[in-house]
């Protein structure tokens, strides 16, 4: 089986189902690594007087356990499920951008490997807790922390690309009749989840960048008193708290669908649940400072965050009540997935209500940093999210693999899990005085810790049993029918596993909720509107319709694949390792990146990559917008947040600095003004180029783009002159904070200018060689130039005038 073509298929695939499987398998690997680490430190905690895993090694284990479980297991597992299921659930043939989807995956894999590589470098892996608190993350750690920071930046890139993809897919790729009110709760959960990742990750990436710079180039963002601990706290927790809901919402969505199927009811108060989860998504950005209740912040600010934290429990309470009320007057069948979800709800109730305790500042003063917090979030993460996801896996497993599994064993596994979760985490509530991340502790806590460790081993047994169930199903499982659960939904109307192209014919959801698969020519003949109204009206009924996954005609599917996403991922892996391994490796990584980008450009130039565009779709209120433009704006918004975080770092440090001489003492404002004018002029040229292209005058358009290239080059030249002068005066990136910020911010901006120049040069070359780039692609580059310019309108006054 392991032939070259098999390997090649998985390395180059851009099919959403393949990538979904890759995501899930990879995330389970990271789960196993993180689980082994947990067993190691739980063993140490059962024998606090022995030295099984102490000091830095203990700290490395808890750190990597946390990071892997949250960022490299749970979230990617959900993304994997979403990858596989969302196109099926909404009636699309793939995600909106299949190649970017592959890129997301390869960046994710690279980032995880970079993180784990930390164990093999001098000083070991990151060892300051998954929160990587400053300034110890700079002062007291080895090279592993650099790798952790690189991994964080890479996974930020991965989820940003993924967010763009999922937002555009759900907005623009739904089958006709699949209105917002009809899409399944799992898809809703993923949508809310990616909307949180969208803005939560950029500040974290900025924090990670500051960490790398501090460790490698001698800046002092995280070690100085002006930045330091509080700066990291804000950047980290602005990400960290939404991240909790990022993990929770897809699981909660899947739980809602599963309860609905096995209770044989519709989800209770579905519309209110959706609204509630949307409110929770918005609120999740406004609670982060409850992680900083005792850092010494203004009491008024903390009171506000205390109230928002209490408020956010209400939407989740509604969701929980809705899940329970769905059972009311249902016909509940006790199948394995349902039982997992029920257990998940029970643990969620415990984990959720203990969370309310921590919303009160005075109570939180005692809980902060103790095992009470550990118990609370493990009840949510393991009890609710993991059990909910296992329920989801057992629910959709027959669909994905086409095999049934041993349900009796799955129920036994659930029993083990229930006992394991309770034994592991309930004692930790009672350990509410014990500090987190202590490998040795006073005698009085021994008994409870031993029960907890015993529970962890029960969990281990449960997960091993789970692996056995899955492997057994793959090897010996009976073939699964298309719909083993008598479930509603589009994905259950196609064979298990679904064909490469998902459907024969175009799925249409009629107004009464019934699903039909109509040949495209029939759909054209009758009209989409009429098909939607056709139930109970035989005159309008299309011909050749099959209710079950295949219209009369076979769909002609264009396979698409690409090697470049894997190459980009590989290059980031090599470059990341190169930061620690040395220059040759770093250069090798850059070379691979150059090859990958060139290959991507050639593929684009030769128009080699074809995506299946849906001819019929439901995309209110995004109809009339090109998917590329929606995607670009979603991406640009996260770029805004990236630069915004950098600017807020500047404002933060500045407002805590005692002395800050005005910028014009070091930087000539007239040179800065000159550069501002140059940049504005370049964008004017580009906009005029777009105008010419719009009217078909491509040569004039290319000429104006050349103007942009010249002005961009000029801008970089002036910038280089300024830098050179400063270096000559003895200033550098490790001078005082004012200069550190100057070099880092203008440096990142200059990198963005260079990237824009490369893209513009490619665009001109394409035009001059006789190809006509699409107007949308020209506009998209214009949007990019706009953001480069907007950033400069902030950087210029920040460094030259104030």
């Amino acid at each position, binding site marked *: 089986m392991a032939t070259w073509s098999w390997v090649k298929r998985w390395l180059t695939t851009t099919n959403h189902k393949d990538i979904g499987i890759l995501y899930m398998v990879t995330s389970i690997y990271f789960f196993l690594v993180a689980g082994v680490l947990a067993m190691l430190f739980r063993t140490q905690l059962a024998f606090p007087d022995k030295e099984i895993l102490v000091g830095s090694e203990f700290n490395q284990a808890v750190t990597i356990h946390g990071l892997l479980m949250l960022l490299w297991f749970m979230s990617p597992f959900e993304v994997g499920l979403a990858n596989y299921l969302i196109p099926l659930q909404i009636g699309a043939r793939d995600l909106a951008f299949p190649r970017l989807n592959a890129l997301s995956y390869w960046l994710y894999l690279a980032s995880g490997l970079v993180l784990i590589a930390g164990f093999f470098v001098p000083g070991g892996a990151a060892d300051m807790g998954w929160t990587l608190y400053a300034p110890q993350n700079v002062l007291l750690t080895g090279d592993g922390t650099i790798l952790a920071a690189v991994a964080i930046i890479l996974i930020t890139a991965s989820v940003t690309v993924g967010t763009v993809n999922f937002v555009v897919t759900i907005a623009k790729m739904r089958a006709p009749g699949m209105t917002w009110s009809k899409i399944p709760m799992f898809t809703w959960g993923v949508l809310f989840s990616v909307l949180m990742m969208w803005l939560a990750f950029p500040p974290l990436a900025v924090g990670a960048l500051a960490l790398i710079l501090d460790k490698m180039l001698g800046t002092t963002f995280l070690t100085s008193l002006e930045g330091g601990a509080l700066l990291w706290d804000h950047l980290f927790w602005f990400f960290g708290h939404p991240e909790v809901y990022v993990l929770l919402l897809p699981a909660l969505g899947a739980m809602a669908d599963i309860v609905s199927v096995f209770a044989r009811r519709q989800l209770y108060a579905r519309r209110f649940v959706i609204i509630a989860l949307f409110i929770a998504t918005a609120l999740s950005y406004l609670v982060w400072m409850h992680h900083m209740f005792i850092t010494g912040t203004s009491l008024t600010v903390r009171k506000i965050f205390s109230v928002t934290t209490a408020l956010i429990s209400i939407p989740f309470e509604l969701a929980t009540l809705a899940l329970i009320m769905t*059972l009311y007057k249902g016909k509940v069948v006790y199948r394995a997935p349902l039982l997992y979800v029920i257990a998940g709800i029970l643990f969620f109730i415990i984990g959720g209500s203990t969370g309310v305790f921590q919303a009160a500042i005075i109570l939180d003063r005692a809980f902060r940093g103790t095992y009470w917090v550990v118990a609370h979030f493990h009840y949510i993460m393991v009890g609710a999210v993991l059990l909910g996801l296992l329920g989801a896996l057992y629910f959709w497993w027959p669909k994905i693999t086409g095999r049934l599994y041993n349900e009796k064993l799955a129920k036994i596994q659930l029993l083990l899990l229930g006992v394991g979760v309770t034994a592991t985490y309930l004692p930790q509530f009672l350990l509410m005085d014990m500090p987190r991340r202590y490998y040795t502790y006073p005698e009085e806590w021994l008994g409870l810790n031993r029960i907890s460790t015993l529970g962890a081993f029960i969990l281990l047994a449960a997960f091993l049993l789970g692996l056995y169930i899955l492997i057994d199903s793959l090897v010996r499982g009976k073939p699964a029918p298309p719909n083993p659960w008598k479930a509603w939904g589009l994905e259950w109307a196609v064979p298990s596993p679904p064909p490469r192209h998902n459907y024969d014919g175009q799925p249409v959801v009629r107004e009464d909720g019934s699903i039909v698969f109509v040949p495209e020519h029939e759909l054209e003949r009758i009209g989409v509107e009429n098909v939607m109204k056709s139930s109970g009206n035989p005159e309008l009924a299309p011909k050749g319709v099959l209710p079950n996954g295949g219209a009369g005609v076979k769909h002609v599917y264009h396979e698409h694949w690409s090697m470049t996403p894997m190459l980009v991922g590989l290059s980031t892996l090599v470059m990341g390792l190169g930061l620690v391994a040395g220059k040759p490796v770093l250069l090798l990584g850059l070379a691979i990146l150059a090859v990958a980008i060139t290959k991507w450009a050639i593929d684009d130039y030769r128009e080699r990559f074809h995506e299946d565009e849906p001819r019929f779709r439901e995309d209110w209120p995004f109809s009339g917008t090109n998917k590329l433009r929606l995607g670009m704006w979603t991406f640009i918004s996260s770029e805004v947040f990236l630069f915004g975080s950098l600017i807020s770092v500047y404002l933060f440090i500045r407002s805590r600095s005692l002395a800050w001489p005005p910028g014009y003492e070091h930087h000539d404002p007239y040179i800065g003004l000159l550069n501002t004018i140059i940049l504005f002029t370049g964008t004017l040229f580009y906009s005029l180029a777009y105008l010419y292209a719009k009217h078909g005058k491509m040569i004039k358009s290319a000429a104006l783009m050349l103007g942009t290239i010249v002005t961009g080059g000029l801008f970089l030249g002036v910038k280089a002159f300024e830098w050179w002068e400063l270096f000559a005066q003895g200033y550098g990136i490790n001078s005082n904070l004012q200069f550190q910020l100057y070099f880092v911010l203008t440096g990142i901006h200059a990198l963005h200018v260079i990237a824009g120049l490369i893209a513009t040069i490619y665009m001109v070359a394409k035009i001059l060689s006789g190809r006509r780039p699409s107007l949308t692609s020209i506009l998209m580059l214009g949007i990019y130039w706009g953001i480069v310019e907007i950033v400069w309108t902030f950087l210029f006054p920040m460094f030259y005038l104030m």
Partner: protein
Amino acid sequence: MAEIVPPQEYWWMLFNYYLIAAVILAGGVTMLLVYFLLRYKTSNEDEYGEDYPGPGRLPTRYAKIGPTRYLLVVTGIIVLGLTVATFPYTEYVELTPQTPDMTIWVTGFTFGWRFQYPEELGGFTTVNEVVVPTNTMIEFKVTSQDVFHAFGIPEFKGAKVDAIPGIVNSLWIVTPDEPGEYDIFCYELCGVGHSLMVAKLKVVTPDEFQRFLEEKAGR
């Protein structure tokens, strides 16, 4: 002295209120869940509830939110009410109500705690052990000389603040009437010696405290 309520008394009071509310609410919801599960169980896979879409369909009808909304409002009021009701106590705990009897500076370092006594008591420092008299209101002003630590005395619930370089946070306790020994821990991972960053709070009789001061002054 006796009229000052020690912060941990309020802490325990509020904790118990929360616990009662949580047990009643969470317990009620759990019982509802279990009741529905048992009441509506069936083994007939083909029996559908009234609004089940069924295979090959999608949900279209939306159940109204019904009486659940009252439950939601009530619990919402309880949760928010509890949170806001804690604010006066938070202020009491955080804003020292009157001048403390003694202010001790605490500096966290890798890996230990340094205590500096006030000038009028000799201004000496001790490491990993702080001796204080019984029935006294003591303010700790906490900072760190290197990395992020967190100073906490678990026996005195709520007596915990972060020790951050460049920032001074304070907390206060009222020592009990009886002598005793209490653990002080570091609550933020600060490096290889984090687990060993344990100090002792020794509460002694006023006489013994006087002897302790003299012994320190004698050095």
